């Protein structure tokens, strides 16, 4: 077996040093009836055979890059520079552990410090942690934090919060006996979240751009929240939007959480991704997750360490702010490398291209008979209403090689009003030819 260095001779010799007659003697505490259970699995295989098996399964999937692609709703197809994948595959990053021994983990710690700074700058917040699993769990953690800060038990969720985020948040708050109340589905950003605040409300959770693509001005809502001691949680599932759109921090959000996949990370069928969590400095002791902080070493040289860990599970156990341990270190590195290549200038340029792609796609689709573009102010994603259930239309377009977007039924199976919605994302990867193919195929499907 190519991964196991011990020879049979080594094994015999080591057993004799140990003073055991057999390997099973080392397992003597295992109940006899349970030891060496029959397990029906195939035998080991060489690289070539494994590649064939995995390759065959991979070949049954349609990669985004293979043709026109307009699917978004929380995961986006962007171009990632080749440098990013090279860096994250370096042994020293890929095969290291959480930096618990800072003297020999300054590489990981410094990029985490850079990641935290980049996230704070993008979101317009004072501090950001070293990453969460993904945007949805970061959102749930924000609701739990609001509960700790306000000592109230009702989270108010926007009707245009990504349904997976809403469900994840609800699951987490209900485990503690709290409530998450979501407003009715809000396709065109018309809801009045401020009116939903009452004396029990811990936080208002609102997404921008929202799941339908609408950009939302949070300024008035933040004032309403502030007046009632409620935390405003802004969710950003497309972080690239922050290269073109005002940050939630500038609009008065107390916590900004979301998904960083768009920068540096591939689609990966939904994971691994990189959640982010940013807030105000005064709330930091109530936040979940890890932080990297700056300090000095015994020689007075600048260095970095994990810090504020008295909030965390390995120290505080059942009093911890969260049970999170492993987060998304390597995905955060991918983010940091990509963002370092982009810089502000590159980010603004690629964000502008995204917006242009989406605007062109929206214009093209609005010329298709029976299609109505519902979203007025958007970044790289918008919603259209079709004259029929969108699920079948998407299937028909997929057969034409066009992956058209997310049909409403996929995310709101129990809400009939959403079934003829199609949510369309267009990034810098979309070409004019892709847009033409989309409109041609859609016209055919609706004819």
């Amino acid at each position, binding site marked *: *077996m190519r991964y196991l*260095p011990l020879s049979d001779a080594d*094994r015999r010799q080591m057993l004799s040093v140990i003073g*055991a007659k057999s*390997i099973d003697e080392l397992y003597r505490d*295992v*109940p006899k009836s349970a030891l060496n259970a029959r397990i029906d699995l195939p035998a080991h*295989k060489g*690289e070539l055979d*494994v*590649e064939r098996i995995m*390759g*065959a*399964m*991979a070949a049954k999937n*349609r*990669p985004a890059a293979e043709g026109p692609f307009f*699917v978004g709703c*929380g995961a986006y*197809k962007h171009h990632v520079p080749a440098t990013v994948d090279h860096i994250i595959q370096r042994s020293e*990053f890929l095969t290291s552990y*959480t930096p*618990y*021994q800072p003297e*020999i983990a*300054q590489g990981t710690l410094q990029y985490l*410090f850079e990641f935290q700074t980049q996230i704070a700058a993008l979101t317009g917040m004072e501090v950001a942690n070293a*990453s969460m699993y993904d945007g949805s769990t970061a959102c749930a953690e924000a609701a739990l934090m609001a509960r700790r800060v306000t000592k109230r038990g009702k989270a108010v969720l926007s009707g245009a919060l990504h349904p*997976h985020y809403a469900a994840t948040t609800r*699951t987490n708050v209900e*485990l503690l006996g709290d409530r998450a109340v979501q407003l009715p589905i809000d396709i065109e950003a018309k809801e009045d979240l401020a009116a939903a605040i009452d004396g029990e409300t811990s936080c208002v959770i609102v997404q921008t751009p929202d799941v339908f693509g609408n950009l939302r001005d949070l300024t008035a809502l933040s004032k309403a929240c502030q007046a009632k001691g409620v935390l405003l949680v802004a969710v950003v599932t497309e972080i690239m939007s*922050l290269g*073109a759109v*005002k940050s939630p921090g500038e609009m008065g959000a107390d916590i900004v959480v979301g998904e960083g996949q768009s920068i540096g990370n*591939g689609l*990966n*069928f*939904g*994971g*691994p991704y990189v959640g982010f969590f940013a807030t105000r400095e005064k709330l930091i002791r109530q936040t979940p997750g890890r932080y990297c*902080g*700056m300090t000095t070493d015994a020689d007075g040289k600048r260095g970095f360490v994990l810090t504020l860990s008295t909030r965390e599970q390995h120290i*505080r156990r059942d009093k911890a702010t*969260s*049970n*999170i341990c*492993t*987060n998304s*270190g390597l*995905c955060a590195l991918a983010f940091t490398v990509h963002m370092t*290549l*982009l*810089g*502000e*200038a*590159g980010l603004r340029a690629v964000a502008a*291209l995204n917006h242009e792609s989406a*605007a062109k796609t929206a214009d093209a689709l609005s010329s298709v008979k029976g299609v109505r573009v519902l979203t007025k102010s958007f970044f790289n994603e918008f919603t259209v209403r079709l004259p029929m259930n969108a699920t079948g239309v*998407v299937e028909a377009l997929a057969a034409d090689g066009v992956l058209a977007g997310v049909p409403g039924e996929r995310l709101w199976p*129990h809400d009939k009003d959403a079934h003829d919605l199609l949510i369309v994302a267009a990034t810098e990867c979309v070409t004019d030819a892709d847009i033409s193919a989309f409109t041609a195929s859609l016209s055919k499907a609706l004819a």
Partner: protein
Amino acid sequence: MTMNREGRQSKGDAATANVVTFTGNRALQIEESLIFEKDAFASTGVDFPAPTGKHDRIGALKRTSAIGLPGLSEPEAMRHFVRLSQKNYAIDMGPFPLGSCTMKHNPRLNEKMARLPGFGDVHPLQPQSTVQGALEVIDTLAHWLMEMTGMPAVAMSPKAGAHGELCGMMAIKSALAARGKAHRTRVLAPESAHGTNPATAAQCGFTVDAIPADETGRVDLAAFRGKLGPDVAAIMVTNPNTCGLFERDIKAIADAVHEAGGYFYCDGANFNAIAGKVRPGDLGVDAMHINLHKTFSTPHGGGGPGAGPVVLSAALAPFAPVPYVVRDGGEFHLVETRRMAKSEGEGAAGGRITAFHGQMGMFVRALTYMLSHGGDGIRQASEDAVLNANYILARLKAEMTPAFPGYCMHEALFDDRFLMGTGVETLDFAKAMIDEGYHPMTMYFPLVVHGAMLIEPTESESKAELDLFCDALLDLARRAKAGETARFTASPMLSPRRRLDETAAARKPVLRWTPQQAPEAAE
């Protein structure tokens, strides 16, 4: 003719050790500033066509303020991150015996497979007809996990070990509620448990009651029985436990908690000691998470991403979260929502714990690992991991003090008795290992052992590597006892940084770069 094999003789070793260089660099160790200190706020390392500027649907929400993000050209960025990487220790460089963390070799075939466009470049919300191979990976991996654990169901979406714990404990809470037993709110967990266990129980709204360890490092059976009662929801036990020992009364523990009306949650962080050899399902387990980044070698990546699928008993299976994959003949379907008793469609029971379908990239790597190893290789890997740990235990007990008598499983636990009176503490001993070229073992965990040192070699170490490692630790132990205290308390001396001031870092946290830090940084 004779070759000069030594090259030019160097003179004076004491002087060279403390040499001060103009740059602050030390040969291969290059000092590297933060990206924010490179005066690169206007530059970029990417080329894009200029946007036409003809479209604007952003309006009043357009960003007008500066963001403050530096951009580096590709060669500058490459150097920046390569220099950073060279300040890290890694399993690819040498032994990383961090107990409980399982730092084993990460096969690169797994990386290659995860990057196939059919896996890496597919969207979670594409039509299911276009991702049948991805669903097949999830289904196949689920089959391997169920077969290896002897459990009938598995929830695949948890993102890491602690997230798996949340998933399993949530299923237990929902099952209790469905049985009308919502008043059962107390969870028992050994004092030696990972911190995530009590933290998870609390996050699920349970209270936590700690069970002491007995003198053999295992659950104190009498104390455990004494704590059972009508309010007990579950026991959370790590097995093999965090002392590196198999809980030999595991079946009695399972039977007792079941008899008392509670469930048995097993923390599967140490499954790598028994995978392919013992099925947790045969031991009475109701739920157990499996850290794919430990047992099945998806890379730790400096702290994630991980993946923590949870195998479930028949009693708990109905309370697994969505989504899950079902096979219908040759076709796979993803069930993404489920109507439960709750009016809102998705409640805590059977609700979601994350967006999308779990850590697909980790699934591909873990399945690749499993196919490579096969059932026989997984079993051999477990046996070798246990053999390596016992070999270390046998060799090191000449100078160090094992915390408990007898064999261990996949990790060897020592306490600090051998350092008593030396002025050297566990921390100093661990830091001295750094100068010898090793990553330290896990220190001060588990909490039930004084000055704990938990060494997990994994199956990836050769005998020669283990022998050198043991020789080095024995030498350190002898030096500590011989009174070379300063060598330890001043260590590490050869690493990119020496001991860092963690107290100052926590007292006045600096968590991001700000322009005001610039003068300080330029000192």
